[in-house]
Structures are given as structure tokens and as C-alpha cells.
């Protein structure tokens, strides 16, 4: 992915915003697990830990590629970063899948949908498209949840997930069309915008006068 260096640098810095947002959400979710022993929050925390490490690996690999230092970037490391990210999206979708099973909905059928789309494409392509479907599933379930609760925050999170979903789709396109530099930056911007939107509930915890240990 040969980006002009300035654009690439911006892109890699944005990855670290993703790291911060992901770990912040994971932190609040883990606090929730400790206080309430909720398995939903445990899956949410696990999802964002994977996403955080995924963005971290991708950011470090990207920055390393920009520096004149000895290159440690290998395809395996890049794929490892993507694998961590995809696993994060899987847990995000899995949280909803368990919720679906609890309420005996038919939405579980959507979970097998990504598997059916696998082809003989390269591993990075497969991981990107898998991420896309996992996020898409998360968007569908979050919108469904909004239809039940009518909670504005839920709709906001669905929009954030949708942005991440479009970002992962553009990421897949950028892997296919390597010569289109702007796609790589675009996918990072969309994903980071989506993640910043996901940060909203965490901000409410920090600013809304509620301490992280749950006491008012």
C-alpha cells in the first residue's frame, strides 16, 4: 500500500486513536464485569481488547514502514494484526448472537451468513471481508435493539458500527486495488470515526458524574 508519506503518517496516527478508544471501552466493560459479573459485558470487553491489540499491531507495523529504521514488517505480522481485529469483531457479533439465543430470535441465521461467503481469496482479504460481515451483523442487531429500547445512544452506536463496517469494506477494496492510495486512508478514517462514536457511552461514564466503580 504505497501511500504518500504524509497521508500514511496521518493514517497510522489514527490507528492509535483506535487503540485508545478500544482499550477505554474494554476498561469500562471490565469494570462492569467485576461489578455485575455480566457475561455480555465480558464478551464486549474481550471484543475491544482484541480490537485494541489489532489496531496496535497495525499501527506499529504502519509506523515502522514509514521510518528509516530496520524493517520488521512481515506479511505474518500484518495478518496477525488483521486476525486480532477480525477476532474482535467476531466477539462483538458473538455478544449479539448470545443475546439472540437468549431471546429465541431467528437472527442467529445471520451468523452463518459470513461463513457461506468465504472464497479462495488471500488470507488478508478473507479477514477483511469476515470483519465486514461481523460488523454488519452487529449493526443489524444493534438497530434491532434500538427498535425495542428507543434509546438514542443505541442508534448512535449502530451508526458508529455502520461506519466501521463501511471502513472494513473499503479496507477489503484497498487490498484488492492496491494502486488506489486514497482507499487505505479512507478506510482508516471511517473506522476511526466509527470508533470515536462508540466512545460516547464511555464519555458519559467519565463526564456524567458517575464514578467508574458504579457509585453515584
Amino acid at each position, binding site marked *: 500500500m504505497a501511500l504518500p508519506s504524509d497521508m500514511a503518517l496521518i493514517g497510522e496516527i489514527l490507528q492509535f486513536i483506535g487503540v485508545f478508544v478500544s482499550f477505554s471501552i474494554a476498561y469500562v466493560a471490565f469494570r*462492569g464485569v467485576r461489578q*455485575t459479573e455480566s457475561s455480555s459485558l465480558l464478551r464486549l470487553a474481550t471484543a475491544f481488547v482484541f480490537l485494541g491489540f489489532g489496531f496496535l499491531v497495525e499501527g506499529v507495523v504502519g509506523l515502522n514502514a514509514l521510518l528509516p529504521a530496520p524493517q520488521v514488517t512481515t506479511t505474518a505480522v500484518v495478518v496477525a494484526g488483521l486476525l486480532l481485529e477480525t477476532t474482535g469483531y467476531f466477539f462483538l457479533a458473538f455478544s449479539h448472537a448470545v443475546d439472540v439465543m437468549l431471546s429465541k430470535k431467528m437472527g442467529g441465521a445471520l451468523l452463518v451468513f459470513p461463513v457461506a461467503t468465504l472464497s479462495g481469496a488471500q488470507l488478508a482479504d478473507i479477514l477483511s471481508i469476515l470483519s465486514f460481515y461481523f460488523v454488519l451483523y452487529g449493526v443489524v442487531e444493534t438497530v434491532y435493539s434500538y427498535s425495542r*429500547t428507543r434509546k438514542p445512544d443505541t442508534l448512535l*452506536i449502530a451508526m458508529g458500527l455502520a461506519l466501521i463496517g463501511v471502513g472494513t469494506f473499503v479496507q477489503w477494496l484497498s487490498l484488492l486495488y492496491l494502486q488506489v492510495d486514497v482507499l487505505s486512508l479512507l478506510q482508516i478514517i471511517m473506522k476511526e470515526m466509527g470508533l470515536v462514536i462508540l466512545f460516547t457511552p464511555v464519555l458519559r461514564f467519565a463526564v456524567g458524574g458517575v464514578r467508574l*466503580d458504579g457509585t*453515584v
Partner: protein
Amino acid sequence: MVQYRTQVRIIADVLSTARDMNTEGTGVGVTTLLRKGNMSYTRMSKLLSELVGSGLLLELTGEKISKYMISEKGIQFLAAYYNFEDFAQSFGLRL
């Protein structure tokens, strides 16, 4: 559509009943908890023992029946529960 409650949700329901129905400050009887908690007597008895054991509920033993009152720890648990329920709902999840 049937909405199944998670264990933590059931605990929150019992604690909030013990808090809200304790209008006279003398505690809430098992019958009230059963009616509001919507579960069997056996299951409620087991849950009440656990909640008293963990310090979330206080058991006020009378001559014939026991009554239950939410403890300070229980109030803190409920506050945390509602905060994190709000957080989980933002992500379209249930606690």
C-alpha cells in the same frame, strides 16, 4: 416475544423490590418478593440465602416470618447495575 432474564437481572429485580416496597422500613416479606420477582418459592429461597450471604440483603427475623431489607452494599450494587445496564444497552446488549 418472551424475554428471558439473566441471573444478574433477576438479582437486580429482587433488590429493587426490596428497596422500593420497603415503605414502612420494616422489610419486605417473601410473598411480595415472589409476586414481583415472578419465580418459584424454591428458587427465591435459594436466591435470598445467597443475597443475604453476600451482604446485599439484610434478613430481619421475626417471630413467624422473615423479612428482607436492602443493605448499603445492595444499594451500591443496584447503582452499579443501572449504570452498566445503560452502558450495555448503548451497545444493543442486555446485562
